[in-house]
């Protein structure tokens, strides 16, 4: 147990934390929102992440590539929450209206609801991989780092996740929804 950092507050350390965090909340919120699709959940995830970050700050403030570390914490928080929430998924909410026919133009609320519902049905890790790769434009190497796994695993999870989406969505994507 390293107690050199002391249990007391350190003004300099706090200032560093505040400076770091304040500039990054919008980006963290965005990733959290893309991961889960829910604004409240996104705020909860970011709140938990920056709380953990503060708790660890004396030890990790000097970590190289702190941004990657913090995003990893965020993704982990998302996966932990999904892990706890997997049980009893079978009784589930569905979009209030059934999708009808091809919808023209940009993503409608309905289309988003259908896609999000489909995404929610695949394993959380695959969900995270797909969102990070295709919505957050992260490279395979980046995603491997964020999830703490190999690049090969990211690739296979991408493939499994997309196959699962194909099964769930059938032929509705790739043409019109």
């Amino acid at each position, binding site marked *: 147990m390293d107690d050199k950092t002391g249990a007391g507050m350190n003004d300099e350390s706090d200032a560093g934390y505040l400076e770091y965090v304040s500039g990054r909340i919008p980006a963290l919120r965005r990733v959290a*929102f893309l991961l889960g699709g829910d604004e409240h959940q996104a705020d909860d995830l970011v709140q938990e992440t920056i*709380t953990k970050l503060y708790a660890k700050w004396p030890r990790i403030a000097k970590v190289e590539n702190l941004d990657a570390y913090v995003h*990893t914490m965020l993704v982990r928080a998302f996966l932990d929450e999904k892990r706890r929430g997997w049980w009893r998924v079978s009784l589930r909410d569905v979009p209030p209206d059934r*999708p009808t026919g091809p919808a023209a133009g940009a*993503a409608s609320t309905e289309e988003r609801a259908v896609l999000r519902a489909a995404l929610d049905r695949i394993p959380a890790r695959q969900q995270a991989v797909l969102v990070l790769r295709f919505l957050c434009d992260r490279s395979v190497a980046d995603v491997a780092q964020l999830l703490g796994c190999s690049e090969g695993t990211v690739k296979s999870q*991408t493939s499994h996740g997309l196959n*699962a989406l194909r*099964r769930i969505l059938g032929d509705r994507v790739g043409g019109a929804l």
Partner: protein
Amino acid sequence: MNDEEYGILVLRPLGGDPEGPSAIDVGKAMRDGRRRRRRWWTGGSTLAAVLVAALTGGVLVATQQTPRPGPDLPPDPVLPAACTAGPLPTGPHESAEVSGGDPSGAWLVGMSDAHLPTPPVSHSVLLWHNGELVADVRPRDVRKGSPGVRMNDVNGSGVAVGSDPRGNSDPWVLENGEVRKLAGAPGEANAINDAGVIAGRSGPPGQRRPVRWTSPDAEPTPLPVPAGLGNVQPTVTDIAPDGTIIGEIGGRAYLWWPDGTSGYVGLPTVEGRKADGFLPMAFSHGWLYGTLFLPMAEPSPAGFLGGEARDTPIYRYDLRSRIWQKLADWQMETQVAGTFHGQFMAAEPKVFVGRQVLSLPAYPAPIMDGTANFLIENVSDDARTVAGTALSGVADPSKPAVPVIWRCR
């Protein structure tokens, strides 16, 4: 279209930024974070939890890491050679899901039209006996906004217990063709054994505590929990035939023995890696099945991820001998029937029977591309009867969910 193109096409409509105002509170993060720092400095949260358990006299120690075949271990059923799949009758309902079964496999319980949104559809509790629909009950006095009653378990007398799956919940029982609330509502009833003892939780959301009902007519009795849990919410997973209740506290399994003692399940060390969590999934075939949490075998590429990432193999644990057996490398390889934590849908129905994997024939549900998503809810003790649900894609509510029974020999 290759994977890359399909991924972009299918995911892109979900892009965008959150629109509402941020609810993030940096000041609160610092206050909460400061408390966590203190906690770590007083010995680490895991150690603190062990300490609590030790003080309550309940800590259990895993003594065996290597599976040891022996006459003391609960016997596994013989893996069936072949199974056939068929639909369970749903009466007037368009669709239904199986939500639980008893150890003999004769009794199954489910819910009608669970895949449709609650208003406008109200859901019925369904009870099957030897494959026949014997009760179809629409519960009265369901809370406003509740999606209905989900029966979580049923025993060998056809008595089922359940809860409201979302929001505030009441503990429910189905007995003699009637669905009613158990004493001590609100709460949830998660499991019942053949002796009629019910395990669940009582109290409002956020303050639910583990309880036992000694019969469907009894008042709930609180089960002891370690002191100083703070915001940690214990959950209740299952009840064994001998009345041992299995729960989870802070990511570790917790046992309430019939003699009134209780304690955490000790965590094993696997190949030099000390497990730091075990989520109990279900008690089945005499064993407790669950997901073990192990630090990653290889350091992550980021180097500093240390305590964050975890391997999540499935293990089973014998409560008496405290022996652990590994079943699968990760938690989503094969389903554990009737699991409380970590349920997932699989394209190919396969389920643990004892220590082995039983691959079941897919039931051709009327769904997209002829491919189903299966949830297995029950495997009988003799492995002759398996039950679950073939679900359509949530993206298409017009495709019904089909309750399926597999008969094996």
